[in-house]
């Protein structure tokens, strides 16, 4: 099946999914915290819009609720909370130094290829109109993971974590038209609690090590055992 045979709505879904992937890369490469939070908010909005479009095209009414939930939570509430935290911790102007941005991004690209490879058998099962968005969502998940591994700033790690959640949500929407509502509510609740806990932790960490750099969270390394 070729792209040109798809209705406009599906094309829109594909474009939005690709944009969500782009925001993942933007998140990965953003060195300024505030810009990274913006990218995250855009990603949330993209995921919400994809959800709404899928809901419209498949007449799944409970997905509208999920879309609204995502929009409210991922693109408004959590970014707002993070912004407030960044302001309170005086980190607005902070620019994180990334050692090898090109390596960072190329690894990201490799992860996209890997996700494509992993999800090939899933695609073969016939996803119909949402096509291989599963590969995109797995990429978003893995890119979030990669961001958590490669970035040294606590807030950047949290953004990676939350963007993983975005990817998971996208996977659920794209492959199965969303999980049952009760599960989705549970997941959303967990995400919200996690966001609040992250906020609490920022304060604890910045109090205890006077910085939000995870490289300084090294008291419990195994090396220390020998000294």
């Amino acid at each position, binding site marked *: *099946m*070729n*792209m*040109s045979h798809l209705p*406009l709505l599906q*094309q*829109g879904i*594909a*474009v939005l*999914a*690709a*944009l969500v*992937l*782009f925001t993942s*890369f933007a998140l990965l*490469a953003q060195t300024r915290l505030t810009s990274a939070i913006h990218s995250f908010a855009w990603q949330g909005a993209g995921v919400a819009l994809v959800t709404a479009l899928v809901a419209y095209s498949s007449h799944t009414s409970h997905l509208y609720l999920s879309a609204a939930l995502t929009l409210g939570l991922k693109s408004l509430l959590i970014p707002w909370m993070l912004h407030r935290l960044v302001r309170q911790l005086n980190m607005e102007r902070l620019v994180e130094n990334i050692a090898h*941005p*090109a390596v960072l*991004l190329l690894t990201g*690209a490799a992860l*996209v*290829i890997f996700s*494509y490879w992993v999800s090939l058998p899933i*695609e*073969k099962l*016939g996803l119909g109109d949402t*096509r*291989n*968005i599963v*590969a*995109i969502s797995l990429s978003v998940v893995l890119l979030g993971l990669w961001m958590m591994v490669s970035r040294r700033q606590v807030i950047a790690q949290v953004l990676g974590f939350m963007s993983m959640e975005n990817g998971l949500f996208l996977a659920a929407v794209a492959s199965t038209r969303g999980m049952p509502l009760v599960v989705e509510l549970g997941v959303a609740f967990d995400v919200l609690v996690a966001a609040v806990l992250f906020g609490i932790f920022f304060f604890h960490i910045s109090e205890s090590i006077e910085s939000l750099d995870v490289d300084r969270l090294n008291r419990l390394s195994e090396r220390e055992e020998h000294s």
Partner: protein
Amino acid sequence: MADFLSLSGWLIVLLQGILFLLGAPLLAGWIRFVKARLQNRRGARIIQPLQDLYKLFGKEALVAHTASLVFRAAPYVVFASALVAVSLVPLLATNLPSAMAADMIVLVGLLALGRFFLALAGMDVGSSFGGMGSSREMMVSALAEPAMLMAVFTLAMSAHSTNLSSVVDFNLANGLILRPSFLFALLGLMLVAVAETGRIPVDNPATHLELTMIHEAMILEYSGRHLALMEWAAQLKLMLYGVLIVNLFFPWGIATGDTAGALLMGLLAVTVKLLLLGVVVAVMETVLAKMRLFRVPQYLNLAFLLTLLGLFSHIILETGT
């Protein structure tokens, strides 16, 4: 594809070439004009660049005594390669006799040839500015070319051809389709175009006073008709990228037959599209500040990333069963 020996076809090719030659300075003038208006200046007339060229051709060409043959030959080579390149691009109509040579990779090669001689000429005299400009130009192009090729491949994979004419035909035939890969390729190609044609934020075409200049530094030693050719070639390149962007991604209006009406329609369409693009460029140049030179690689990385994502999204989202 039209008959290779069709006379009318070749006439249209000739017409396109002339239009390019005249249109390129006008496009540059248009951008300058809009920019001036955006900055609350009256600005020069749109035909000012044409008049500048005319004036430069009338002046004596001074050549530094350290210059070699390369320095003298470079303007002609650069201009000729630009001219050949533009004559391949479908401006008004698609199925022209020149179309069989209108391969995207040939185009990239021709542009590279021109750039190579430009850089050589910059270094030839041995002035410090020229060498600096050349090395910067090569850095920019080394980073921009992969992105450009990637964008080209993305388009080619959708259209199953690297021929410009076929790609345009393919897009025309399919009508408006939201393709994520095209979106990324378009954005990436625009970034590349800005870098390659030396516009803000990569280079500033309006000044000779900055230590960060790239293009102007290389042609600093030229005067008279040599300078005119160099300027003209640069303007041709700008228009080439402009036409590529508007005709590849928004091909509507381009003539597919060779009737006078279709051609006139094509001319009107491409003029309107280029004028709009000129406005976009002018707005961007007004809003953005020129970035520091060491930020340029990051900027081009972004372009590369975008085109790479275009390729990925083509493979992931647009192919398959």
